[in-house]
């Protein structure tokens, strides 16, 4: 037996070491770091719930778990709750965390729809429970601010991180959560406008700019005849955890309609809601200290000054035509400022934000509010007719940034980076293609067979560089351009060419000259170029 002893000792030691290797002996140790949101805005609860929304940057918390022990942790289960809001919910179970390994768990809380009934701010607690190795438990908790449903916090950056104007308004991308086209009350309001103010409309079906602008004016007219007024709401700076921000009390669109009053951002949100409910593509333009609504149709932006309704107490009220004129003027200023790189000028494309997960809150139907809409809608039929029968004429005039002397009764003048005269029956669109900022304006005949394009290409060193840039840019949109340099005359470089697309091939002639910032010029052409060459030449002869 004695002689067997060394062998038995070796075998026992070997078994022990192998067991020590494979079985979870030793002490597991979990080190936890939590990064939390300072506040939750109930209006954005669908963004917080979606890990894909806005790249997942709006989480309640994320937690780093580091195994700083010497043994592998198994079945690490993380659950959390927010008393009164979210019951115990399992977030994730991680099968193993090896010694030294880091594992990250993210929490995108699923609040119930009734969170939008929360009216005031409160401090709430998140409780986190981590269980691992079958029986070991670790508990963590933290507090955060639960805002009221109307409260909009403008930024989530701590003061020391704020470096620019956009940083102060970082949460502008959540404004879309307040845009509620599916709200039964807003749908009902939209239907009332379509029926009683517009007497029928087809803007979303026809996809014509004129119809869309007509709807924009009709919406303004609805607020005008119902004597909606401009008024302020509470906006106070608050310290929310690490964040210092202006907290704005923002009335929901249904509250603006039934209360018959709104601030610029609230009116913009109302417009966006109604426009979207009507099938249009709403935009909210944000500028320092102000916001105004608009639409994007056929690649062109239109805007209206919604606060033109003013109010008797404020001294003046703008007609729908004047509100559109003011909006278009602001839009021109907006484009110029944005082009010059002023990052205080931005816009919110509601459809684009929706595709990124910015989904509005759920709101329920309310009989009382419907009756309020009925009362408001009664003023629609009794009010003065404010929607123009021929909005295109208004639009055409309003869209002109500045008119030159013109060329008699049959000619209008363009004055901008270049100046020239053109037939007054032609329609002018400023910045017709948002993606092509170099295309300052397009003026076209009503039958679409002829057009003048005004070009301003800042940064270009020569006309050849400018035209090559244009060629490459429009090629991305399926328009293929061929051109040839003709000659230079009086400081202008003259080119001729053709542009082909699915719609056919068009001939054109272009003149370019140097400006302070780059190259400016015009192109003119269309189908049946040779028959219209005299007219084109006469227009080109007026280019200055």
């Amino acid at each position, binding site marked *: 037996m004695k*002689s*067997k002893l060394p*062998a*038995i*000792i*070796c*075998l026992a*030691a*070997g*078994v*022990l*070491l*192998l067991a*020590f*290797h*494979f079985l*979870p*002996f*030793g002490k597991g140790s979990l080190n936890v*770091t939590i990064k939390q949101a300072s506040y939750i805005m109930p209006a954005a609860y669908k963004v917080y719930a979606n890990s894909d929304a806005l*790249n*997942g*940057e709006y*989480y309640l918390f*994320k937690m*780093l778990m580091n195994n700083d022990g*010497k*043994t*592998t942790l198994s079945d690490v289960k993380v659950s959390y709750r927010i008393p009164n809001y979210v019951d115990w919910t399992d977030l994730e*179970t*991680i*099968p*193993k965390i*090896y*010694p*030294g*390994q*880091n*594992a*990250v768990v*993210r929490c995108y809380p699923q609040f119930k729809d009734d969170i939008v009934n929360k009216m005031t701010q409160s401090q709430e607690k998140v409780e986190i429970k981590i269980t691992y190795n079958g029986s070991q438990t670790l508990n963590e908790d933290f507090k955060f601010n639960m805002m009221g449903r109307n409260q909009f916090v403008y930024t989530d*950056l701590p003061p020391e*991180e704020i470096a620019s104007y956009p940083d102060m308004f970082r949460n502008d991308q959540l404004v879309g959560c307040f845009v509620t086209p599916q709200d039964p009350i807003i749908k009902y309001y939209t239907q009332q406008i379509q029926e009683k103010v517009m007497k029928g409309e087809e803007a979303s079906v026809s996809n014509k700019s004129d119809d869309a602008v007509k709807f924009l004016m009709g919406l303004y007219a609805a607020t005008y005849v119902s004597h909606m007024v401009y008024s302020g709401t509470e906006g106070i700076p608050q310290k929310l955890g690490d964040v210092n921000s202006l907290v704005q009390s923002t009335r929901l669109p249904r509250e603006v309609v039934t209360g018959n009053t709104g601030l610029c951002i609230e009116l913009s949100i109302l417009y966006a809601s109604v426009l979207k409910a009507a099938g249009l593509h709403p935009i909210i333009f944000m500028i320092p200290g102000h916001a105004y609504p608009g639409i994007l149709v056929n690649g062109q932006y239109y805007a209206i000054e919604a606060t033109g309704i003013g109010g008797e107490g404020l001294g003046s009220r703008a007609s729908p035509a004047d509100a559109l004129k003011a909006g278009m003027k602001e839009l021109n200023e907006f484009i110029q400022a*944005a082009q*010059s*790189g002023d*990052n205080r000028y931005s816009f919110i494309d509601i459809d684009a934000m929706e595709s990124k997960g910015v989904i509005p809150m759920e709101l329920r139907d309310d009989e009382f509010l419907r009756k309020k809409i009925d009362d408001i809608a009664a003023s629609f039929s009794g009010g003065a007719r404010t929607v123009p029968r021929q909005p295109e004429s208004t639009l055409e005039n309003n869209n002109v940034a500045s008119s030159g002397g013109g060329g008699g009764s049959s000619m209008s003048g363009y004055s901008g980076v270049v100046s020239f005269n053109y037939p007054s029956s032609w329609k002018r669109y400023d910045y017709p293609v948002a*993606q092509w900022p*170099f295309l300052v304006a397009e003026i076209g005949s009503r039958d679409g067979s002829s057009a003048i394009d005004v070009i301003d*290409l*800042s*940064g*270009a060193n020569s006309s050849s*560089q*400018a035209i090559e*840039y244009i060629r*490459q*840019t429009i090629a*991305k949109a399926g328009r293929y351009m061929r051109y040839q340099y003709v000659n230079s005359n009086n400081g202008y470089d003259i080119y001729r060419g053709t542009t082909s697309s699915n719609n056919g091939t068009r001939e054109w002639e272009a003149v370019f000259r140097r400006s302070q910032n*780059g190259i400016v010029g015009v192109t003119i052409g269309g189908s049946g170029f040779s028959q219209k060459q005299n007219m084109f030449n006469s227009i080109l002869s007026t280019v200055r």
Partner: protein
Amino acid sequence: MKKIGILLSIFLCMFFLKTYSQDLIKPAKLNVKWGLNTLGDAHIETSMSMDAAQWDNYKKTIGSNPDILKRQMERTFPGYFLQNFNYKEDVMNRGWTLSFDALGLSRINSKGLWQVDLNSKNPDVTKLSDKNYVLTSNYATGGSLMQEIDNITFPDGASDVKQDKDAFGKAMFIYSSSPGGGSGGWLTLGLGALLLIIGAIMFVRVKPAMAAVKK
């Protein structure tokens, strides 16, 4: 892996308007190197070179306050914990490099395999070796053309690297890897096995010897 490009689109938007006549002709190039270690953490190195006009505008915006890059990266990777940021400029070549560590980039899924989420559908992936893959993407951003090249290197111990999709069709890499396992590591495993073998041999040899003594 296209998320970095989204980040860069923010930069390009900021200086696009002043440089569009140049950057369309030559796309901006972004290189991103992802180096995964055996514990699932990643060392990420992003680098970008620009033409003169782009560089000029970059220096006037982000370049004057490069910590904005750190914040943008944290927003680009909200799901991870980032640390050890390091920013370098190569002014003579108009370029910058930002490196950092992303903790917990790769995680162990319910099947016990390591998983790296790519956050994009149908990426253009080229296999360079069993542990090295390249993702190439070209896209327009801010009116400009961006070419992004993501180079992913899996850890030395990784095997069976495969592409897969999650329930939403998003691409991911799956692989096997063991960072060492139990409490004593490979030493206890090797020593234990050695002692078992020695003990077994001794046990087997002792029996005939005792039989001979009895005779």
